[in-house]
């Protein structure tokens, strides 16, 4: 930001906001998230290399249909998130609110599906340290361990996303987020898209092994 732009901003009675700085902080945070999940993907890669047969057998038990549905839900929620930002940019507050609410709704549906998916696994006795699982070869124990940790951590990110996006919804309703200043919404959007990105890789690695 140069001096002239600062002066213009002040004369227009707008609080000076460092848009680039705000976004930069968010990207740095996303960088740490990539490394957090990256470490887990690394563990997955090594064990899949060492126990590829057992990973294939174990993965057959995952429900591809529910995984595909959740993929479609998350991709759509990314669209509605992007649209919410696009509409506040165009000063259409109610459309922005509508699409942000849809994003939160889709995130909730994702979690409901996850709940049914996990409880079906629990019913079959497949959960960390269950007797059924511990009697299986170590490759399968590792597969399901990674499945629970990685989709679990991802699910936790979805929960945090819902909380963050709900705050954004309140800010939108209270005019704390406007077409002049929507950094908060943009940064929350970046976080939400990251959650989608991680799922884009989790989906084929866990649900699509044949």
């Amino acid at each position: 930001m140069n001096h002239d732009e600062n002066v213009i901003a002040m004369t227009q009675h707008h609080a000076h906001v460092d848009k680039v700085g705000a976004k930069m902080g968010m990207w740095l945070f996303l960088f740490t998230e990539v490394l957090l999940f990256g470490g887990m993907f690394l563990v997955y890669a090594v064990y899949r290399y060492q126990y590829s047969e057992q990973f294939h057998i174990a993965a057959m038990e995952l429900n591809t249909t529910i995984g595909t549905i959740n993929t479609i839900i998350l991709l759509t929620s990314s669209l509605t998130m992007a649209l919410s930002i696009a509409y506040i940019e165009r000063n259409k507050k109610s459309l922005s609110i509508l699409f942000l609410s849809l994003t939160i709704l889709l995130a909730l549906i994702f979690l409901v599906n996850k709940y049914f998916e996990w409880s079906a696994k629990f019913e079959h006795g497949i959960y960390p340290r269950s007797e059924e699982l511990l009697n299986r070869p170590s490759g399968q124990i590792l597969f399901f361990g990674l499945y629970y940790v990685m989709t679990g951590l991802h699910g936790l990110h979805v929960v945090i996303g819902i909380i963050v996006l709900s705050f954004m919804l309140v800010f939108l309703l209270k005019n704390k987020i406007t077409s002049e200043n929507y950094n908060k919404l943009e940064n929350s959007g970046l976080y939400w898209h990251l959650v989608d990105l991680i799922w884009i890789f989790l989906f084929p690695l866990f649900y699509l092994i044949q």
Partner: protein
Amino acid sequence: MDKQHHKIEISTYIIVWLSLLAFTSITVTIAGISLGKYTLLIALSIAAIKSALVINIFMHIKFDEPIFKAFLALSGATLIIIFVLTFFDIIYR
């Protein structure tokens, strides 16, 4: 700043979303066909294309400050280095 701020058309977002759905159905269909060792490669390539779409358009990276691209490249490069070094160890152990 605002004059330079690139607004992405609504229709662009819809097209990207439709492509993402198309790639999802392709990857699910391909997973059903037995392609042996290429299955993983194809699945990961499709995932990479999908993430490129999300990062470039939904996350605006294509139209944002170059510094954000540098962040992304740095985190990507870090991951690749960690993966390559680890697999050198695992494969040649």
